[in-house]
């Protein structure tokens, strides 16, 4: 019994360890900004003087025109539109027309989406329209290879993996042209025009 009393506690008191760890934890909680590195990706056209000046005639019917004015009002193919979300189906109908409707595109390869804003258009509106335009294309690509649009966007950012790239290229219909260059027969032709100068600045 006496021996037991002598051996009181040989361990180091570690009850404050949790407090120290808590302090550090709270520090990191406060300083953390969870990085959001997601968004709408876009490839800008090259410098104006780099483009060979070739007059390319695009048939009027192949162009799908979206215009947003300085009051954020939409004009799609000459008609005013209230709901941005309707654009998605209109784009799909236009691109996948294959010459059936004489007012719409001849083939996906010829189809062009022209998106024009005004200097006074808000960025919020610009993003929501661009979101619908790109979304329409992602849905069409995804349907071509039988994946969901979410999976398509996922694999579009993993093109450094060969099997992902294969599906990605298949979806966009990549094929060799006369010069041996790979071109898409289903390109995402979203042309963002120079804004008009009615409103703003």
């Amino acid at each position, binding site marked *: 019994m006496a021996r037991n009393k002598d051996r009181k506690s040989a361990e180091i008191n*570690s*009850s404050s*360890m*949790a407090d120290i*760890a*808590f302090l*550090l*934890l709270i520090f*990191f*909680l406060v*300083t*953390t*900004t*969870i*990085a*959001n*590195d*997601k*968004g*709408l*990706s*876009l*490839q*800008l*056209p*090259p*410098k*104006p003087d780099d483009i060979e000046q070739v007059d390319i005639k695009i048939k009027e019917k192949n162009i799908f025109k979206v215009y947003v004015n300085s009051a954020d009002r939409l004009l799609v193919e000459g008609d005013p539109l209230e709901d941005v979300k309707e654009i998605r189906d209109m784009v799909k109908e236009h691109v996948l027309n294959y010459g059936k409707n004489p007012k719409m595109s001849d083939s996906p390869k010829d189809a062009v989406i022209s998106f024009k*804003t*005004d*200097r*006074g*258009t*808000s*960025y*919020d509106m*610009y*993003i*929501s329209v*661009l*979101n619908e335009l*790109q*979304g329409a294309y*992602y849905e069409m690509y995804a349907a071509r290879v039988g994946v969901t*649009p979410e999976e398509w*966007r*996922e694999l*579009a*950012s993993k093109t*450094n993996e060969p099997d992902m790239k294969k599906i990605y290229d298949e979806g966009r219909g990549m094929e060799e042209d006369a010069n041996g260059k790979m071109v898409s027969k289903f390109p995402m032709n979203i042309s963002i025009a*120079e*804004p008009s*100068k009615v*409103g*703003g*600045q």
Partner: protein
Amino acid sequence: MSKFKKKANTSQEIPTSALPDIIFMLLFFFMVTTVLRETTINVEQKIPDATELRKLQRKSLVSYIYVGKPTTKLQAQFGTEPLIQVNDAFKPVDALQNWVMEERAKLDENEKDQLTVALKVDKEAKMGLINDVQIALREADARKLMYTTIQEIQD
């Protein structure tokens, strides 16, 4: 009786020796996921939301441009019109070309053409300014662009 006493002697405390370990695990999680912010953002940022998001391929290739009106503290000095901020300072549009050059110089030789510019723009900014930025980026041949947006919550 003796049997009873022995049972009563057992300790009544909840063992807390595993608590530090649990807290440490949380701590390490946050340490690993933390990205310490390098720049103080001097513009208001209400990022728009969208549904068709794509991830950036590699973070080291990304340079950020912030656009928005100056924060309330700086409004007396800079006004309330949206401005462009890169690395801590407000820059005019014509300075962007040089900035792209500097950013590109930071990358490895074989990655110089892969520079991606992420635009973090306030909802209320106007397209006129954004277009000026885009023209400057085209001039500087930094054509990979990403509009940073937040995932829209769908109902």
